[in-house]
């Protein structure tokens, strides 16, 4: 069974490899529905576009008073802080205002004209209660997609699915006993594919600009968090950077760290059991 829905601004595809008879089809279908529902919830909680998402509430008021979070939002923020710390700041979700300035994300009332802090300014009072020492404009676009893939896989497993794959527009996770041959798009011509290896019980995420540049002429959505407020923070590149890791959340976040190191495997990759793949042009 393979199904696909538009979520997270891309096409999310769920594949189940389990053999099933006709009467099991319905329960497999329900498992896939539940997995899609989990992704929709993550979009609702962590979307930058939605003004009423938990992320938007953090951006509007976390510096004024503490905010109670859904455990999943808290989990993603904690992971974002972990990657931020281990990458010495190369991964930072506090770049939302840069993407707004470039017209890549919408401007919301109540989030403007500040000197913004970063993910490091968040403090957890309780596991699901957070405040910020400075105003922030976080965008979880560089990590939440990976988390959504992981959660969807977890929901499938909880519903008795043994083997399958979740692919959110190119960031994917494979689970169960089947290994999967993985193809990557050639950054020079995205309709050309390279077989890059075989993956079992793991995830791969990719960052590249070939689709972004094909469809519009806007600055890159990859931001250099070290750029000073007056410097151009948009990193333009033509390569394709992929990260293989046990979980898609870390694979997704670490692609940005790999871009900043221009493809040289960053030292924190061993901490995350991650491997880098760069396709040059």
């Amino acid at each position, binding site marked *: 069974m393979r199904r696909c829905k538009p979520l997270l601004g891309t096409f999310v595809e769920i594949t189940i490899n389990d053999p099933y008879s006709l009467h099991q089809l319905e329960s497999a279908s329900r498992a896939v529905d539940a997995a899609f529902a989990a992704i929709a919830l993550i979009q609702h909680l962590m979307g930058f576009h939605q003004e009423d998402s938990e992320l938007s509430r953090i951006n509007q008021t976390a510096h004024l008073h503490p905010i109670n979070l859904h455990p999943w939002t808290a989990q993603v923020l904690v992971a974002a802080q972990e990657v931020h710390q281990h990458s010495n700041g190369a991964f930072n979700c506090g770049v939302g205002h840069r993407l707004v300035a470039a017209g890549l994300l919408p401007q919301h009332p109540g989030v403007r004209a500040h000197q913004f802090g970063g993910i490091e300014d968040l403090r957890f009072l309780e596991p699901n209660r957070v405040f910020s020492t400075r105003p922030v404009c976080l965008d979880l676009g560089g990590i939440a997609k990976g988390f959504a893939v992981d959660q969807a896989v977890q929901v499938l497993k909880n519903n008795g699915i043994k083997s399958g794959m979740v692919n959110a527009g190119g960031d994917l996770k494979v689970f169960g006993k089947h290994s999967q041959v993985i193809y990557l798009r050639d950054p020079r011509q995205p309709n050309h594919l390279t*077989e890059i290896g075989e993956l079992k019980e793991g995830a791969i995420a990719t960052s590249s600009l070939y689709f972004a540049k094909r469809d519009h002429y806007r600055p890159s959505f990859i931001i250099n968090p070290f750029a000073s407020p007056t410097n151009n923070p948009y990193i333009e590149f033509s390569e394709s950077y992929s990260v293989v890791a046990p979980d898609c959340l870390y694979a997704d976040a670490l692609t940005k760290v790999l871009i900043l190191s221009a493809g040289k495997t960053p030292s924190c990759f061993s901490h995350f059991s991650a491997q880098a793949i760069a396709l040059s042009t």
Partner: protein
Amino acid sequence: MNWKPNSLALFGVAALATPIAAYAKIYVSVEQAQQLLLPNHVLTKSPLLITRDLQEKLRLASSIRHPFQGDRIWKAQDGSWFIVDEVVGKHEMIHYAVALSPSGTILGIEILEYVESYGYEVAEETWRRQFIGKSANSPIKLNQDIQNIGGATLSCKHLTDGVKRVATLYELALKNQAPKSP
């Protein structure tokens, strides 16, 4: 985790890349999508003649030029709707189904098939026609083994425009067909 890299790909050699002239993924058939989006409903085909005026309004609301076909509309007894449409982009063609509640709320979207190509073929009516009407049970064999494609995230903006078109169709043409209360 078990990762066996292709030894040549390790060197970042994109030169090994093989072109895919076009590939198609068929997810579910129209009947399956009806079951998934509106389970336990009896659907009746309810085709609609799309006047030139309506076609133009749909185009303006969605910025999709490809004409809407009014013969893929179904109605449930409670007044819910099931509509099949496609978006034809420069690089891809997507068949999809939308279920609407009697009041026009989107209940769900399901992709029926996704065809990716190197652009110009997609625009060819004859080339496209070969995919139409194929079901998940009779998938076309076209690079069928290539399924697990990683890479930069593909935007679903065109599809969002398509869903906007279906919502507009409801507002302009289907809403007034809602069952009248006795």
